[in-house]
């Protein structure tokens, strides 16, 4: 009985303390989401003189036949998958290197963070220039190395444009993954590696049997963060290709932006937002599920 009242009082205090945060969250998240969903039930575009006309789930039905939407979803998936995979591999490599003791490690750790600290729009502009066909550093280097003898249009050709975007994104966000993984690596006791070495393991076996399983939570967290960010990528694309050429790098966020701001199709835009949001939530929920599972595995208890 005694403990129950204590617990109840603590619970009350708890709710009281998080109430302001909850209110703010409701205001900045819940309300816009609800509002967007409400808006998605209306047709409100130039055809209706920008007046909202209730149309039920028409907007959602329209989505199924909208090839451009599916194309942008495909582009987003390709971009997300490739860039996150590369970032994971490079991030792991950097983390392993930065985890070794070497002269100037502190400096290297700080320097590695610089790309992550830069504003995306700024570094996007820089990469657009780097890949510029006439003045870009990449073409210049390739010329000098004798690999090409006429300028390559990096951002003007679908595959190469996607490639350039991935390069820029990997450059910017690898440090972020490396840092999360590094923190995980540092929490693994060196005893384990020594015991494993005495057990006869090669470094590669140790990496697979000790490092990877013990790093699983950090890997999943990094993937989760990066997936959410990458799926909604906007600024980098907007600055470097604007979705072109011919929509070949148009991501969902770019398409939504165009729908709302360029075609002034508010109802349909809201429907796109709602669906994208749901997709994201589902993906994150799946990842979070695995995350909680791996946590249980690692510590051997809940």
């Amino acid at each position, binding site marked *: 009985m005694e403990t129950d009242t204590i617990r109840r009082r603590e619970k009350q205090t708890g709710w009281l303390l998080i109430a302001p945060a909850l209110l703010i969250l409701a205001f900045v998240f819940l309300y816009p989401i609800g509002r967007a969903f409400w808006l998605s039930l209306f047709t409100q575009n130039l055809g209706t003189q920008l007046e909202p006309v209730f149309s039920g789930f028409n907007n959602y039905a329209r989505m199924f036949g909208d090839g451009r939407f599916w194309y942008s979803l495909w582009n987003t998936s390709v971009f997300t998958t490739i860039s996150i995979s590369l970032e994971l591999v490079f991030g792991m490599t950097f983390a392993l290197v930065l985890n070794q003791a070497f002269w100037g490690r502190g400096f290297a750790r700080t320097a590695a963070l610089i790309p992550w600290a830069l504003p995306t729009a700024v570094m996007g502009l820089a990469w657009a220039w780097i890949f510029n066909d006439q003045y870009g550093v990449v073409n210049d280097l390739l010329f000098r190395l004798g690999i090409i003898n006429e300028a390559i249009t990096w951002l003007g050709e679908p595959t190469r444009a996607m490639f350039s975007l991935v390069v820029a994104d990997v450059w910017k966000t690898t440090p972020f993954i490396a840092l999360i993984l590094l923190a995980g690596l540092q929490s693994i*006791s060196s*005893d*384990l590696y*020594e*015991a*494993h*070495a*005495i*057990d*006869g*393991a*090669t470094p590669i*076996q140790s990496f697979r*049997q*000790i490092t990877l*399983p*013990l790093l699983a939570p950090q890997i999943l967290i990094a993937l989760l963060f990066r997936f959410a960010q990458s799926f909604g990528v906007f600024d980098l694309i907007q600055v470097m290709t604007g979705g072109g050429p011919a929509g070949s790098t148009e991501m969902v966020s770019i398409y939504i932006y165009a729908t709302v701001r360029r075609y002034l199709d508010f109802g349909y835009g809201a429907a796109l937002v709602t669906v994208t949001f749901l997709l994201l939530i589902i993906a994150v929920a799946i990842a979070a599920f695995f995350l909680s599972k791996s946590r249980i*595995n*690692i*510590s*051997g*208890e809940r």
Partner: protein
Amino acid sequence: MAQLKLQNLRKQFAPNVVPVKDISLTVDDGEFLTLLGPSGCGKSTLLRLIAGLEQPTAGQVVVGENNLTHIPPGDRNMAMVFQSYALYPHMTVAANIATSLKIRKTPPGEIQQRVHTVADTLGLSHLLDRKPGQLSGGQRQRVALARALVRNPEVFLLDEPLSNLDALLREQVREELKELFEKQNKPVVYVTHDQTEAMTLSSQVAVLLDGLIQQLDPPSRIYTHPANKFVAGFVGSPQMNLLALECQGDRAILGDFSLPLPSFSPQPSGIDIGIRPEDLSLATEDDKITVQGSVSLVEHFGRELLVSVKIKGSHHTLRILINPDLQWEKEDIKLAVNPHRIHWFDEKTGDRLNP
């Protein structure tokens, strides 16, 4: 027949960090060698050199006929129990024990059988499916042992495996360890800074200080014939009385009293003596060599009393173990010294003088 032999091992980390200076010793099959020494004397470093976790700056590690100095740890066929146990936290107890066998591509059937045999021996059978995080300290310690035993290695290395256990459990596990390793009949190198462990477990004890072996002898001899002042003071509890005395002729002066010197040549002008508290007694009429003083402190030491006596006419204090039933005068207590139980040490080098 595998003999572990260390030849002039040295490990230098930095110009003035040399935890292992020059160590040579051999450990035969079935021999239990304990490395005993204060914290930071290089015990763990020496063990890591044997295991191959550190490369020696100079010297060799040899097992049987094979020079293993440049062989990686996994190929040395040595098993090591870490002070922290170093259990793999994401694997079950069974997987922890089986790891070395799996890496060596032992057939699954044999792995299972060996894991179960070892688990039975150590009373771990009901814990095989747990993760290390769900075990008590003593259970973890036994998993770490099981991991070493299952391999059937040529040499066992143990780095303070009992230091994380409470006193009672430690005593119990000590016995188990002794039995276990007597059966194995392999060279065992055991690191500890606990002298009780060293005394009870080992067939040989190497007392280390500053990266050098101070004495390498069976435990009883370490106790009765400490090779120098450091060993004398380090081994034994309560600690041996160590006094620096002046000599006059063939007697060492202790305050208003004197002790007869054995025949040293040349006669020293000063000498260090050591007397264990249990080798002093309350004087009776018959005792020839006696000293007198006043009691400055009485401590309870198990069944006996540890009494500190300030010797008349000097600043020296002798500690003596007394049966609490005996009667004595606080202000004027008379102690008998058995001359055969006095340890004599060189004043400068600290080396033992009497045989």
